[in-house]
């Protein structure tokens, strides 16, 4: 009887965990070939922001406080982060995300460090400069911006995204 109760409790929790909840908890999702399309599918008919960064990109790290602020002030925003580093530096990635309170965002990591192929799948016209941020509206029309974005510009682009 006791075992059955425990099993029931376990089952309830397994099924109560939404896939996206699981992803945003502490795991760094692996961004493989095809992941970009799957990402678009998972945000079907929703606006979202894809923030691409690297642990060796100082401009990316400087921008993280702003991202955390936006996340706090506008929790309804779908902010997705993608590090172009691979899992071999998970510790450092997690340290940075924890430091800037971005751990509970949807976080991805390249399957292969700085993969040209994965970059190409996201955007053949992106040369790899970082940070690289894509603003998608609900129809998934996107604007790609290279470099750090000021708070004012961020708000402007988020506004455009909602149209």
């Amino acid at each position: 009887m006791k075992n059955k109760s425990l099993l029931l409790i376990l089952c309830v929790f397994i099924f109560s965990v939404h896939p996206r909840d699981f992803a945003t908890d502490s795991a760094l999702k692996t961004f493989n070939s095809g992941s970009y399309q799957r990402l678009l599918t998972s945000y079907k008919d929703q606006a979202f922001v894809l923030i691409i960064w690297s642990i060796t990109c100082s401009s990316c790290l400087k921008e993280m406080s702003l991202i955390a602020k936006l996340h706090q002030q506008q929790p309804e925003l779908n902010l997705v982060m993608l590090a172009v580093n691979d899992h071999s530096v998970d510790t450092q990635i997690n340290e940075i995300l924890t430091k800037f309170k971005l751990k509970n965002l949807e976080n991805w990591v390249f399957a292969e460090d700085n993969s040209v192929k994965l970059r190409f799948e996201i955007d053949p016209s992106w040369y790899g400069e970082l940070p690289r941020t894509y603003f998608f509206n609900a129809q998934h029309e996107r604007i790609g911006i290279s470099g750090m974005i000021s708070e004012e510009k961020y708000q402007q682009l988020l506004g455009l995204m909602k149209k």
Partner: protein
Amino acid sequence: MKFLSLCRFLVITILSMSLSVAANSKIKKTHDLQSTINCDDDKALPHIKCAETVSSTFDKKGTLWTVWTFNDHLYLQSSTDQGQNFSTAKRINITPEIIRARGENRPKIKLDQQGNIYLTWTKSLGKRFTSDIRFSYSKDGGHTFSEPVTINDDQLVIGHSFDSLAIGQQGEIFITWLDGRDGFKAKQAGKDYLGSSLYYSYSTDQGNSFSANKKIAGQTCQCCRLQTAIDQNNQAVVVWRHIFAGGIRDHALLKFNDWESVGEVTRITHENWKIDACPHHGTGLSIAKDNRYHLVWFSNSETHQGLFYGFSTDSGKIFSKPLNFAQQGAAHPHILTLDQQVFIVWQEFDGTETLAKLIRSNDSGETWDKPRIITQVATDKMDQPFLINRANQAYLSWHQPNQDYQLKKLDEKLIAANSH
């Protein structure tokens, strides 16, 4: 409620750990399949194929010299038959050190007229964004190398990187690099400092001693390779990506008057690329025998995108109207001049293969033929392409990390065989 939260936490932790292990196993397995030499094996012997980058040059006798890293050591190999066969790999540093060898930052090798070999590299100091500039030489044709020394003299654990090496007509050794000491001092004083600084040092005694470090420019972009060349008047010329007023990351040039003094920092490209980020995309510079400066560079500004070429006939004050010779997907151009011939190579990933492309001028850069594909490799993981000169013949030096190093003679036969 606490018990329920703990259960949920445990379930999620166990599941995430399983997924993480599975992902890591998959990455390792794919890597193993790519080569018979297991470059990840701690016991593996050094091999050029396991290198991330290969830096190469020909000496005046036509011998090819390559320098690459493996397991925290720098190795040297030579070939007397243009890369068909190589000598046994010679280890340079006895004490292991983490050497930056990826993309824009890689070891350098140059020889003087006497055949002395000079090497520079960037040694990581462990903490992110910290490194030193290292130097070593051989005066016996590569049999023995000097104990590496650190060229930056500030003793600060900060960034010193993107070493660039050139040898003067009298054997002077010129080293320039990006240095973080000014930014560090400004930060300590509570002030801002934009970008990095350009520093240099030189030796007139075959590397036994070096001049005190001297700053030659501030507010440089922090992450693009430098290019250094010696002009026909034995004056050093340095080109880098700068941060101009308004956050514009276009290119600058400095020409030395002699080994001790420099001219003015000159802005030489005008794409007005306003970006607060690191493009990781440096230039290519080659100075011809007629003292014409030839330059290739990358931009992604609103008005100018892709790869560009220009030349200067007045020692770098003004450059010709830029030729936009490649657009979307084109990257990392390099340039070489041989008398009136000028070669430009670059790479492009087309979704499946990485192509090495070429354009050539026979009239010192005034006119150019259409791009050709010189070679391609079925991968997205290629090192940057470089051009080197052997007895007035251009060669493409191109490495596929963990796979293969190739040297291709860019003779008329090869060029003709590759259609536009």
